[in-house]
C-alpha cells in the first residue's frame, strides 16, 4: 500500500473477527517497524510484549478490561502491550551515551554539525541527558514521547499489513501481574491487532479540527495556507477520505451489536 493511503486508511477498529488469528509474520513486521522508528539519541525508549488472547485465561482477559475497553479485547486475537522504558536515559548517562557515539562513528552525527565524542562526553551527557534522568516528571514525558514514535510506526505497519488496529487503555495492575514487567517500564497502551469485523472504513475518516487551527506559518495564530489543489491530490491518493459518519454506519453498528450480542 502507498504511504499516503496507509495514513488515510488508519482508523481505530473496535470490532475484530474473533475467529481469525493474525499471522505471526505480520506481528513481527509490526515489531520490526517499531524498532526502526525515529528516536532521540538512538536509544530504545520502548519495550513491547505480545499477548495472545487465546493463551490468556478468561479471568486474565477480563482483568485487563476497563469500562470502555471490553468487546475489542474479547475479539482481537493479539494485544501488543507498549511500555515506556524509564531506565533508558539513566542507563545512557551511566554508560556515557555509547549509542550516540556510535552515531558519531558511522557519520550520522558529523563534525559538520558540531558532533564529536568530546561533545557527547562534555555536553550531551552531563548537560542534556543527566538533567532529564534526574527529573522524574521530565523523564516520564520525554521517554513516553519517544516511545510513542515507535508505537505510531507500529500502527501504520499494522494498517499496511491489511490489519485492523487500535490503541486502547488497559488495566495497569493486570498488565503487571500477567506480563511480570519490571517497575521501570511504564505502561503506555495496548495495541489491539486483528482482522476487522467492521468494514475497514469503520464509519469514515474521523473529524479533525480545521487545518488552519493546528498548523501555522512563522507565528502562532498565522494559519498555514491550505492549498485546495493539494487537498485534491491527497484525496486522489486516498489520504483524505470520506468523512465520518458514512450513511450506513449506524446500521453497521446495529448488525455488529446483534452479531456479537451487545447492547446499544
Amino acid at each position, binding site marked *: 500500500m502507498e504511504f499516503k493511503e496507509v495514513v488515510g486508511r488508519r482508523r481505530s477498529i473496535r470490532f475484530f473477527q*474473533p475467529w481469525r488469528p493474525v499471522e505471526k509474520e505480520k506481528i513481527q513486521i509490526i515489531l520490526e517497524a517499531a524498532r526502526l522508528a525515529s528516536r532521540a539519541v538512538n536509544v530504545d525508549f520502548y519495550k513491547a510484549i505480545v499477548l495472545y488472547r487465546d493463551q490468556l485465561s478468561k479471568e486474565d482477559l477480563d482483568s485487563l478490561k476497563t*469500562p470502555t475497553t471490553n468487546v475489542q479485547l474479547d475479539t482481537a486475537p493479539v494485544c501488543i502491550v507498549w511500555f515506556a522504558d524509564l531506565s533508558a536515559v539513566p542507563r545512557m548517562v551511566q554508560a556515557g551515551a555509547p549509542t550516540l557515539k556510535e552515531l558519531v562513528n558511522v557519520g550520522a552525527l558529523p563534525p559538520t554539525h558540531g558532533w564529536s565524542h568530546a561533545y557527547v562526553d562534555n555536553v550531551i551527557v552531563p548537560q542534556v541527558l543527566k538533567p532529564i534522568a534526574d527529573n522524574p516528571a521530565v523523564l516520564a514525558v520525554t521517554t513516553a514521547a519517544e516511545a510513542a514514535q515507535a508505537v505510531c510506526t507500529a500502527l501504520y505497519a499494522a494498517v499496511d499489513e491489511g490489519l485492523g488496529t487500535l490503541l486502547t487503555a488497559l488495566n495497569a495492575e493486570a498488565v503487571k501481574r500477567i506480563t511480570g514487567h519490571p517497575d521501570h517500564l511504564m505502561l503506555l497502551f495496548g495495541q489491539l491487532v486483528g482482522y476487522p469485523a467492521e468494514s475497514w472504513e469503520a464509519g469514515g475518516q474521523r473529524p479533525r479540527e480545521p487545518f488552519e487551527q493546528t498548523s501555522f506559518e512563522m507565528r502562532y495564530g498565522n494559519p498555514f495556507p491550505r492549498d485546495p489543489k493539494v487537498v485534491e491530490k491527497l484525496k486522489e491518493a486516498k489520504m483524505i477520505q470520506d468523512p465520518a459518519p458514512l450513511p450506513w454506519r449506524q446500521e453497521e453498528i446495529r448488525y455488529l451489536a446483534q452479531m456479537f*450480542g451487545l447492547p*446499544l
Partner: protein
Amino acid sequence: MATVEELAGQESVQRWYNYYSQHWGAPPDWDFKLQALARFSQWIGKTPDQMIGECLREVEGGYKKIRVKKRRFYIAKIKEFEESIGGVQGRNWANAVRSFFIHNGVAMSADILR
C-alpha cells in the same frame, strides 16, 4: 417494584430515552426495553433512579463520578439476571438493562456471544 408506566416517569428513564433517541432514533422496541428494565427493577428491588443514583456521585464542578464498586455490582447483577432467564432471550433482556445504564453514563458491556 414499579410498573412500566411508573418507570417511564423516572428521570433516569427519560434520560435513557432522550440520549438513545439522539443517536439512534426513537427505539422501535421501547416497550420491550421498558419491560426489561421493570423486570430487572423488580428483581433487584430498586427503582431506576435509585440504581443510577448509587452508581454516580456528584463531584466539584457539577460533574459526576462513577462509583467503581457499584458499577461492578450492577455488572455482576445484570449477568446474574441474564443467566436467570437464559439463552438469547436472557441476553436481550439484559442488554436492554445495560443500555439503560450506558445512556445514563455508566459504561458497561457484555461478553461477546460465542
